[in-house]
């Protein structure tokens, strides 16, 4: 520990607690060395009062000879000189000696102590064998001790200790030493606790009196500092610091209270004007000068603060907390400035700056003195605050003293400097030797402009570097900015610029609008001075559009641009190019026509909505949009596709394109990230327009995913260049008002192709504002269109047989219809164009706008129908409707509907689904000669036949009826009349008698009408009958022409009409019972009767002829599909049937009803039974081959099918079975008219079996 210089007594001693020694000095002297060495070796636990935590403490003591003067008199508060323990040493071992001298001596000593109320004492009896040997009449060792104890330590026997053989190396000696030392330490601590406790209590009492008048802070300060000294002496720096902190807090509280109007009297002395500002002194542990001032009530606020802080600093450094020093220092300096302000202390201008500057540097140098470089560097976050503060203060001093101006200080400044330097006083001796003492630095800095600059730059750079190393970029930039201000004052814009740009970058990047504006303003000034015209103008345009500036400022900067733009400087031909974004913003773009598609020669208007950011109206010499032209392949697409379709997805529904507004400054993340532009995507198959896939496409991926550009590009759009587009749109002499402006570009379309707007350039005198890219992409298209004719039906399906309307749409394209131009339609046989005077043609503009109507002349000759077109200019549409009628042929061509027409599939899908429900179609082609082409245009139209006819033969025994079903397949209702069935071959003996009553009938959509005729014949019936149905029809909605009945005919052929066999089935109950019963066998009798004689149709392989008697083989079959019957035994069999009228064959079999009730008879069927060795050859087709396997003799062909199909199938059976080479007999069913089942539909009553009932009763 450094021993402070100075006179007062307390500092002449070593700073150790004092213990006095009385008695035999020789004894003590002999032991002193050991004692001083051994005492601090072992730590002792110090238990503290007031709940303070116990501490381990190494005790030391300063042993001095006992003098009465050392004992403090009443009221003496000095603690450092306080003797904490009094020790009496003796080595007396002789009772006589004890009684004669030692006892008296001790008594005297005790009395003195008692006089001073001191109870901290100890008597040490040194007991050594060497001494004892010299004596003859030695008493037992204990006796002296006992005597002393009984004499002096009546209650405290521990106050007397024996130290045995202290100078010998023995275990006994060691033990007694330890006991003694322990005792000594304990007593010392006890004394500390007691005396310090007492002191603290006194101190507290003093503090409590602080509200009393006349209480002095300085007095109290001295008292509490005494305590701090003692703690420091005991090396309890923490506790010492607490004392100072308490003093600090107390003082602060008073100042605060003073501010609140509660001023203590004693505080007045601290309010004296500041006369000296020589900063903190931290190099001495105790600044005695300041202490004296405090003691004498002569300290100023700065003195007190300085002294307090220097003590705190010393202790903190002892505690190895240098970084707390810097932190506290900054707080202190700020606090002092505040306190001086609060106490309204008069401070000369600049004095505080000096004080703060010096103090900052003093603290920094003090810290540097106790730390190594690496430590300092790694802790610059703690020191940088002081550096910055010092820099700030130096700067303000420089400004104050005129050292930071271009011209240097004037006389007033010099006077002020002299005053300030005077307040510093003399340099203190302890720093005099140091070359870089704060004092010297300040003095030098204030001495001249150059030295100030040197020091200021040094300071600033140091602070900036520190900030950069610890990553506090923003703080570094702020210092940079302040440096830039300094440079600007010095008239050195070159150096200022970089700092300003750096600062601007960080503000822009983080979107701080106000700092951006402010820095830009500084930058503008800087650039103006530097003569960076382009940059200056760019910055000016930014500032002119900056809403954070006042209207005047904005106007000023706008005027700067305009002044430059309009000044006539012939030397500089080159135009200055600036970005447009700051000047004006493109809000939207409106195409007229809205599709942005114009035919050649058409007029295209583009209306720009331009939002001017300028505060005043600006006259633009011209505004030019450069256009890129490309011949797009898609241009060759059919021009008709353009009609009514939007050209681009980005184009709004009304031809308006909205541009994304630039986000305002303040949200940088948004400006860096344009919003997603998503579009739906449909991928359709080219052939049938069905959807293959769909998805979402992001159109501006390139913007979203690009690397984040460095911020500089925002500010310096240096790469803007004006494109020299071959084509451009131009508007001249436009006055751009602040806010929204509309500018119209008008152009006449010339070359067909795709035009893309690339750049927008506004020219004001020598300045050009350029919008380098227009995004989203804006395009318009100019097309050239061939004339084109389109013919389409008005309704979905054109119906054959009645008049239908067909719409003709003629796109004139580049062709102008002249007088006399006509369409020549070559007439087809089955397609008639109905001539009428009512036809009206409508002429439309390309946009769909109606222009006029005009009548249409249609003239028909034998071969050609000529339609005279109305006059229409190019790129117009002529629309008109014609009535056409397609005749229905009586015989329908097969499946023509599926043919491709005009390269497109026409209703194919529908027909594929269900041919039964679809109408039969007819394709008709019209060849049209157009006036603009030498080639004919072929137009295909598909007509549908609205009806379908089904016929069937009905038999009743021998009588025959023909039923015809007429189906209306269309969506239209018809009136039918006059149905007739004719036999075409005109057999003389065949007669068809109509059984239809009504003459006129209505048939609604999707409904059927049935007609019936009875077939009568007199002689033999022909095996084949050709019939023709004819019906007159007219659409029932057609009220205008009720008489326009059209005929509909249908031909069909019927074969094998004549009945050959009658089958009759009968069921009898079992013998003896009246009814059939369930579960009982009944007999089934089937009679097959031949009705006809041998006919042509019977002549087949089944027929055998012997002795003029013809027989044929039949197979019968009894089948019950509804599971009502169980057929017992053979259900089928082959019979030989004589081919003669009235021949009957009966078959009996057993059947059992399974249910009760009226059960229908089982079905009985017969087939022709053909032997396998047939020579009959038929063309097998694949269908029958597949079906073949399922068909065998007993397997029935029980499906209900119409006669013709069964016949065709069975005939192929025979062939196919042969192909397989198996000797299988074949079955051939009869056609529907050949067999008459007389028992069809009959039922028999079956009663339930009685037993069932009985059984049920029994069970219950």
């Amino acid at each position, binding site marked *: 520990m450094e021993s402070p210089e100075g006179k007062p007594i307390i500092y002449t001693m070593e700073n150790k607690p004092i213990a006095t020694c009385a008695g035999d000095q020789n004894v003590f002297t002999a032991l002193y060395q050991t004692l001083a060495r051994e005492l601090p070796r072992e730590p002792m636990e110090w238990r503290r009062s007031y709940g303070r935590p116990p501490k381990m403490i190494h005790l030391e003591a300063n042993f001095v000879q006992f003098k009465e003067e050392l004992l403090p008199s009443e009221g003496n508060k000095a603690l450092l000189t306080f003797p904490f323990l009094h020790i009496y040493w003796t080595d007396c071992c002789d009772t006589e000696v004890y009684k004669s001298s030692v006892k008296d001596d001790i008594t005297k000593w005790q009395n003195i102590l008692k006089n001073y109320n001191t109870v901290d004492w100890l008597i040490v009896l040194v007991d050594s064998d060497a001494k004892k040997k010299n004596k003859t009449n030695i008493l037992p060792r204990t006796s002296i001790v006992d005597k002393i104890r009984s004499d002096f330590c009546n209650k405290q026997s521990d106050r007397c200790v024996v130290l045995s053989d202290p100078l010998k190396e023995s275990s006994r000696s060691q033990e007694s030493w330890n006991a003694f030392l322990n005792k000594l330490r304990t007593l010392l601590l006890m004394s500390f606790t007691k005396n310090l406790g007492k002191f603290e209590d006194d101190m507290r009492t003093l503090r409590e009196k602080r509200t009393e008048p006349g209480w002095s802070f300085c007095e109290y300060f001295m008292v509490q500092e005494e305590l701090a000294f003692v703690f420091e002496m005991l090396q309890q720096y923490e506790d010492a610091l607490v004392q100072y902190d308490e003093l600090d807090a107390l003082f602060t509280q008073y100042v605060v209270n003073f501010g609140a109007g509660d001023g203590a009297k004693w505080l007045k002395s601290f309010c004296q004007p500041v006369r000296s500002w020589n900063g903190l002194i931290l190099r001495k542990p105790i600044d005695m000068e300041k202490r004296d001032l405090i003691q004498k009530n002569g300290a100023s606020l700065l003195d007190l603060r300085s002294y307090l802080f220097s003590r705190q600093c010393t202790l903190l450094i002892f505690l190895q907390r240098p970084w707390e020093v810097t932190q506290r220092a900054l*707080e202190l300096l700020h606090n002092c400035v505040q306190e001086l*302000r609060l106490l309204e202390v008069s401070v000369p201008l600049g004095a505080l700056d000096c004080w703060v500057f010096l103090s900052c540097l003093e603290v920094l140098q003090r810290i540097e003195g106790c730390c190594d470089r690496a430590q300092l560097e790694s802790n610059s976050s703690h020191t940088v605050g002081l550096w910055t*503060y010092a820099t700030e203060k130096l700067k303000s001093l420089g400004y104050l003293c005129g050292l930071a101006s271009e011209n240097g200080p004037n006389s007033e400044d010099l006077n002020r400097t002299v005053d300030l330097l005077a307040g510093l006083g003399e340099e203190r001796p302890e720093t005099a030797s140091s070359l870089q003492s704060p004092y010297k630095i300040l003095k030098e800095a204030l001495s001249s402009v150059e030295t100030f600059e040197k020091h200021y730059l040094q300071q600033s750079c140091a602070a900036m570097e520190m900030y950069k190393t610890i*990553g*506090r970029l*923003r703080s570094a930039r702020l210092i940079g900015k302040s440096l830039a201000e300094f440079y600007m004052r010095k008239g050195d814009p070159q150096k200022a610029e970089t700092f300003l740009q750096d600062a601007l970058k960080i503000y822009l990047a983080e979107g701080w609008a*106000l*700092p951006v504006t402010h820095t830009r303003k500084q930058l503008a000034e800087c650039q103006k001075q530097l003569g960076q015209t382009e940059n200056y103008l760019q910055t000016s345009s930014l500032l002119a559009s900056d809403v954070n500036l006042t209207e005047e400022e904005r106007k000023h900067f706008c005027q700067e641009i305009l002044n430059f733009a309009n000044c006539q400087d012939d030397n500089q031909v080159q135009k200055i190019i600036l970005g447009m974004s700051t000047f004006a913003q493109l809000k939207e773009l409106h195409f007229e026509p809205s599709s942005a598609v114009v035919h050649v020669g058409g007029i295209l208007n583009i209306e720009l909505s331009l939002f001017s950011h300028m505060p005043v109206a600006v006259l633009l010499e011209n505004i030019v949009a450069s256009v890129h032209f490309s011949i797009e392949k898609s241009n060759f697409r059919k021009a008709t596709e353009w009609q009514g379709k939007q050209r681009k997805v980005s184009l709004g529904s009304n031809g308006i394109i909205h541009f994304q507004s630039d986000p305002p400054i303040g949200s940088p*993340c948004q400006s860096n990230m344009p919003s997603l532009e998503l579009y739906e995507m449909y991928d359709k198959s080219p052939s049938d327009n069905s959807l293959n896939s769909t998805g979402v496409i992001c159109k501006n991926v390139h913007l979203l995913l690009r690397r984040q550009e460095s911020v500089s590009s925002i500010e310096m759009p240096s790469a803007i260049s004006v494109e020299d587009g071959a084509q451009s749109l131009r508007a001249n002499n436009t006055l751009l008002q602040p806010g929204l402006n509309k500018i119209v570009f008008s152009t006449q379309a010339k070359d067909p192709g795709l035009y893309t707007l690339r750049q927008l350039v506004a020219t004001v005198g020598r300045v050009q504002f350029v919008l380098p890219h227009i995004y989203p992409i804006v395009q318009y298209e100019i097309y050239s269109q061939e004339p084109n004719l389109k013919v389409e039906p008005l309704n979905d399906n054109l119906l054959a047989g009645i008049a239908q309307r067909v719409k003709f749409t003629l796109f004139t394209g580049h062709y102008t219809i002249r007088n006399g131009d006509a369409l020549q339609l070559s007439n087809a046989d089955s397609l008639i164009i109905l001539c009428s005077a009512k036809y009206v043609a409508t002429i439309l503009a390309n946009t769909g706008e109606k222009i006029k109507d005009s009548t249409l002349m249609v003239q028909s000759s034998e071969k050609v129908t000529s339609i005279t077109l109305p006059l229409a200019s190019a790129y117009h549409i002529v629309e008109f409707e014609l009535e056409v009628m397609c005749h229905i042929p009586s015989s329908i061509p097969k499946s023509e509907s599926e043919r491709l027409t005009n390269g497109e599939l026409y209703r194919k899908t529908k027909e594929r689904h269900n041919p039964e429900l679809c109408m039969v179609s007819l394709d008709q082609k019209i060849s049209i000669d157009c006036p603009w082409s030498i080639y004919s245009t072929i137009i295909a139209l598909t007509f549908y036949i609205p009806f379908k006819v089904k016929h069937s033969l009905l038999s009743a025994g021998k009588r025959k009826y023909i039923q015809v079903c007429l189906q209306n397949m269309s969506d239209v209702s018809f009136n039918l009349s006059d149905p007739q069935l004719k036999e075409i071959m005109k057999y003389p003996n065949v007669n068809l008698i109509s059984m239809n009553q009504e003459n006129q009938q209505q048939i609604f959509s999707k409904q059927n009408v049935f007609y019936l005729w009875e077939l009568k014949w007199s002689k033999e019936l022909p095996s084949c009958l050709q019939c023709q149905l004819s019906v007159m029809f007219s659409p029932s909605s057609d009220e205008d022409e009720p008489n326009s009945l059209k005929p509909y005919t249908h031909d069909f052929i019927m074969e094998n009409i004549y009945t050959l066999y009658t089958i009759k089935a009968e069921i009898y109950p079992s013998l003896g019972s009246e009814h059939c019963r369930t579960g009982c066998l009944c007999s089934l009798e089937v009679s097959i009767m031949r009705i006809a004689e041998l006919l042509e149709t019977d002549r087949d392989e089944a027929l055998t002829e012997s002795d003029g008697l013809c027989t044929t083989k039949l197979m019968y079959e009894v089948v019950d599909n509804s599971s009502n019957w169980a057929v017992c035994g053979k259900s089928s069999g082959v019979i030989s049937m004589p081919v003669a009228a009235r021949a009957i064959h009966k078959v009996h079999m057993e059947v059992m009803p399974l249910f009760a009730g009226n059960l229908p008879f089982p079905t009985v069927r017969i087939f022709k039974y053909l032997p396998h060795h047939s020579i009959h050859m038929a063309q097998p087709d694949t269908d029958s081959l597949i079906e073949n396997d399922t068909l065998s003799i007993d397997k029935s062909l029980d499906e209900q099918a119409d006669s013709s199909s069964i016949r065709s199938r069975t005939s192929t059976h025979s062939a196919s079975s042969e192909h397989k080479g198996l000797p299988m007999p074949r079955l051939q069913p009869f056609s529907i008219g050949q067999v008459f089942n007389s028992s069809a539909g009959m039922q028999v009553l079956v009663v339930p079996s009685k037993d069932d009932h009985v059984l049920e009763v029994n069970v219950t």
Partner: protein
Amino acid sequence: MAVCIAVIAKENYPLYIRSIPAENKLKFHYMVHTSLDVVEEKISTVGKALVDQRELYLGLLYPTEDYKVYGYVTNSKVKFVIVVDSSNTALRDNEIRSMFRKLHNSYTDVMCNPFYNPGDTIQSKSFDTMVSGMMLQAC
């Protein structure tokens, strides 16, 4: 009594900044912006040490001669900065804390507004009123 209250987005641009008196707006903007340095420093050190403690209050960021700058950071890294006049010694740490808590609550209300677009500058009237209240009187 706060002289400046600022809400700063995660990306360090101001969502809201208000100061009295109005003339010194620029100074406070610079001050708040610079204070972000310390905020970031504290977040990064606190982030390491006190991940679980969820202490949002950052304490005194840095003192200047005239002002004290306090910081607070939400879990979503939105920063609140309150600047207090140094001469106002009556304000204790606890009061600053409760001011921040109030600010945070009010900010949460703003965020709950379905019409508020997170990241936009705050224009809520109630938020403004609350801030005005804090500027007028110590809470």
